[in-house]
Structures are given as structure tokens and as C-alpha cells.
């Protein structure tokens, strides 16, 4: 995962770079939570451009971060989500609270 933070906009971009499953979410979660608590961003964006696979573990991972970010008063969105991954998110209904935006 690559992390970019813009202090002026209080914008945290988490660039996911691996396949997202139960195995990989553990590491993603730890790093994401560290960055969120460190920066207290106003907005957090998950950039999926480097993600070629995701199963339901990704839904739980994104919702988990959403809970922390919103508790700190921030917003969460996602960008560059491939069709096969969007399909997994669509099943869960979370796109109503965590939208996919057009571009980064």
C-alpha cells in the first residue's frame, strides 16, 4: 500500500497495491488505521487502481475503516474501482454510504 497525505486539504490517499482477501487485509488494516489515527484526515480515499482481485474481505475492510474515519469526523470514498471489484461492493449495498468517485 502506498500512502499519500496532503496536509493542506487534510486528504489521505491510500493506494492499494495488492489482491484483497482475508490474508492481505490484516496488513492493509494495520497500516491504514495507523495513517488515519496519525493524520486525522478530513477525507480518506481508497485508490483501487492497483487492485486486480477482491472478495468479501474487502467489504469488511472498507467498512471498518469507514467507522474509524467517520468517528473522527471524516469522509471516505473510493476511486479507480474495476468492474469485477465494483460488482462485489454492489452486492453489499455499501456504495450508498461509501461512494465510488469518478477519478482521483
Amino acid at each position: 500500500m502506498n500512502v499519500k497525505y496532503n496536509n493542506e486539504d487534510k486528504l489521505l490517499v491510500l493506494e492499494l497495491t495488492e489482491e484483497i482477501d482475508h490474508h492481505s487485509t490484516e496488513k492493509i488494516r494495520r497500516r491504514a488505521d495507523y495513517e488515519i489515527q496519525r493524520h486525522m484526515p478530513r477525507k480518506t480515499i481508497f485508490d483501487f487502481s492497483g487492485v486486480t482481485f477482491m472478495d468479501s474481505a474487502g467489504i469488511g475492510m472498507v467498512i471498518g475503516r469507514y467507522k474509524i474515519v467517520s468517528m473522527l469526523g471524516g469522509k471516505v470514498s473510493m476511486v479507480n474501482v474495476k468492474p469485477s471489484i465494483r460488482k462485489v461492493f454492489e452486492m453489499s449495498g455499501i456504495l450508498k454510504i461509501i461512494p465510488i468517485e469518478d477519478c482521483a
Partner: protein
Amino acid sequence: MDNVTENEMTLEFLSKSNNEAFARVAVAAFVSQLDPTIEELADIKTAVSEAVTNCIIHGYEDTQGIIKIKCKIFAGSVHIEISDNGKGIKDIEAAKTPLFTTKPNLERSGMGFTIMESFMDDMNVESIVGVGTKVTMKKLIKCNDELCSSIGE
């Protein structure tokens, strides 16, 4: 076509989380001989990943055991059977309900069975508490090579 394509393979591996990627990639490679679309292949990989992950986190929990995958190809469709000898499911109907999870603390969303059901053409769960769980899934691979599409027209 001169003969019906039939094939079969079996995989057995330890219930370690780093085998999740191995399992879905192995099944996808096997299914590739049916010439599936990218979307069909993605659906199969996701469904396999869901079933295998369930064996690891629910079936075997903190213990380690063997996960078995049987994969058959015939009549243009793929049949996948994924089983464990873990703790089993008490109420299968409840388990299949969207958002139902016994592990919300692990950030599970309860969408695994719902995804398997909708990404595959058919899904069936058999389970005995204390004995294990077997998920059977089927998907028809639409014929998309040139020969088939010309016959189809």
C-alpha cells in the same frame, strides 16, 4: 466439435490464509481450458476465495486442517466442490442469509454465501456439526471461441 471436453482435478492443502490466493488461481488456471470470459473467470475466482476463506476462518478457526477442492469440467460447465473437516454449520439457512455472520468482530460482512450464490449459477451447502462443511458450485461457461459463435448464429 469432435469430442466432449471432460476433465477433473483435485487439490488438497493446509488451511493457511496464504493458500487463499493459490486456491483461486489454481482453479482459474484449470477452468481456462473452457475459454471463459474475463468476467466469468473473475466470478469463479471470487466464489472460490469465499469458500476457501470460510473453511479457514469458520471451519478450522484457530486450528489447522486440510481443505479439499474437487473441480470437474463437463458439457461446457464447471463444477467445484470445496470441503473441510471443521466445526460445521448449525443452521445452514441462517448462514446463507445476506449479512449473517458469526464473526462480526473480525470485520466479516456476512456476504460470502450471497456472493457465491449470485456469482455462480448454482450453489449448495451441506454441513454436519463437528464433522465438516461442503460447498458445491456450478457455472456454465458460455462458449466464446470462433467455432461456437459461428454455430450459435
